[in-house]
């Protein structure tokens, strides 16, 4: 594990009893006390995730929104200063390179957060297609925390200097100070719950982390994060999002805007006919747990494959996302094949767990 990078919170994770595993080149906490307990902490209280492994890119330059609009699928020209937006990076064939978040910090200043597993591809892709912009990564000295849960506001508020969190709307972002540590605070997250993200200097990370834990926030690992995003029906790169699948196939057509100028992948998407397959939600009718790669059949005939699956601790049942033929409809029953046994599953519309706000 010598080649793995560590976040500024490595010692804090060890102190909190984390089980550390390799993830996208980083040594990251997969869980502390247990995945189920950490999922419950977010759904009923508040949890904090160290997501410092995610790539943070500072992007500056004149007419930046127009330039970015040529490489992202969404219409970022409509994103105001102090707002956050989701988008896909597409390749020329219309396949998904990554899904990213853009934070508009100023008229000519953005920050882009990318998946750790794709950062090494995203940065050169953006550099190559946006030579007129300055693109700097902050990997060396940056931390990022996701503070998530129905009690996120009340658990975070006491740490914030001079800002009423209730004034921040979903997907607002602004400069803020937590226990004196300055950084960018955004309301949002990847758990299907209320929450905030804070991006700040690595050297301040242990102090903010400890203040959160001291205020009753539960440390949560990547295991709980994956379960929470799956309960919320949110896609994960490498599972629902892949370079060989279009946004339509991945169930992210909503993140592609054709009523704007040209962007990478547009021509290929327009040239393609309607998608013949797409990601769907599955509720498995037995206790068997569907896992990534398990076959899906319809009346015994192979029709697709599970892309993510877990036991939902919140629902107490087995849920999954799967790539299925477009002809199958909501309410249809298919079978997930678990170790050669077919388990019936109903096609449902995610989210599996409704968005949790207090």
């Amino acid at each position, binding site marked *: 594990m010598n080649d793995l990078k560590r976040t500024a919170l490595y010692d804090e994770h060890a102190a909190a009893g984390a089980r550390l595993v390799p993830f996208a080149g980083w040594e990251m906490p*997969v*869980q502390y006390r*247990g*995945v*189920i307990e950490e*999922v419950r902490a977010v759904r009923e209280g508040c949890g904090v995730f160290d997501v410092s492994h995610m790539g943070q890119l500072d992007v500056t330059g004149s007419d930046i929104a127009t330039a970015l609009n040529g490489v992202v699928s969404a219409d970022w020209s409509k994103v105001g200063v102090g707002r956050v937006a989701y988008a896909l990076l597409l390749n020329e064939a219309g396949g998904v390179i990554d899904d990213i978040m853009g934070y508009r910090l100023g008229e000519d200043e953005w920050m882009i957060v990318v998946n750790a597993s794709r950062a090494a591809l995203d940065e050169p892709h953006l550099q190559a297609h946006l030579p007129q912009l300055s693109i700097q990564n902050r990997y060396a000295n940056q931390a990022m925390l996701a503070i998530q849960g129905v009690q996120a506001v009340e658990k975070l508020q006491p740490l914030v200097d001079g800002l009423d969190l209730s004034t921040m709307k979903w997907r607002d972002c602004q400069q803020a100070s937590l226990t004196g540590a300055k950084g960018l605070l955004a309301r949002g997250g990847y758990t299907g719950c209320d929450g905030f993200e804070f991006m700040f200097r690595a050297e301040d990370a242990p102090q903010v982390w400890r203040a959160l834990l001291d205020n009753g926030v539960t440390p949560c690992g990547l*295991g709980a994060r*994956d*379960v929470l995003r799956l309960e919320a029906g949110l896609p994960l790169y490498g599972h629902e999002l892949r370079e060989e699948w279009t946004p339509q196939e991945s169930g992210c057509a909503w993140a592609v805007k054709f009523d704007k100028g040209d962007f990478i992948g547009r021509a290929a998407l327009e040239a393609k006919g309607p998608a013949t397959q797409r990601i769907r939600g599955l509720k498995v009718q037995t*206790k*068997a*747990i569907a*896992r990534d790669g398990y076959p899906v059949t319809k009346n015994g005939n192979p029709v697709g494959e599970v892309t993510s699956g*877990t*036991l939902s*601790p919140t629902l107490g049942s087995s849920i999954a996302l799967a790539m299925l033929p477009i002809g199958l409809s909501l309410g249809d029953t298919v079978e997930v094949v678990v*170790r050669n046994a077919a388990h019936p599953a109903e096609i449902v519309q995610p989210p599996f767990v409704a968005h949790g706000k207090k």
Partner: protein
Amino acid sequence: MNVPADLKYSSSDEWIRVEGDVATIGITDYAQHELGEVVYVELPEVGATVSPDVSFGVVESVKAVSELLSPVAGEVIAVNTPVSDEPAIINDAPYTDGWMIRVKLSDTNLPSDLMDAAAYTAYRADGGH
């Protein structure tokens, strides 16, 4: 790590208790701890045959699937069905209420690679080498 002295252990973290020609099999405290909260268990039917190092079932946590390997050959004569309904028993009591199957041994001479408690403790302390 709890390692009772009266049991034998496999390198894949199952324990076995032999009484006459009947063996009771479960997973060790180390295994349940590594796996985390067990949420699903799949066990064979009574009458099934098991063989050394062949999967006879699985235990799953939210994030992981772990095969159950029989340390011995024989016929399944009892299955602990309560753990299927309440898998957390395996975390709470891996050596007692969390047992999984009872097997009528086809050979009462146990495989030589089974470890006693001291050897298993050393094996796990050494990271499974």
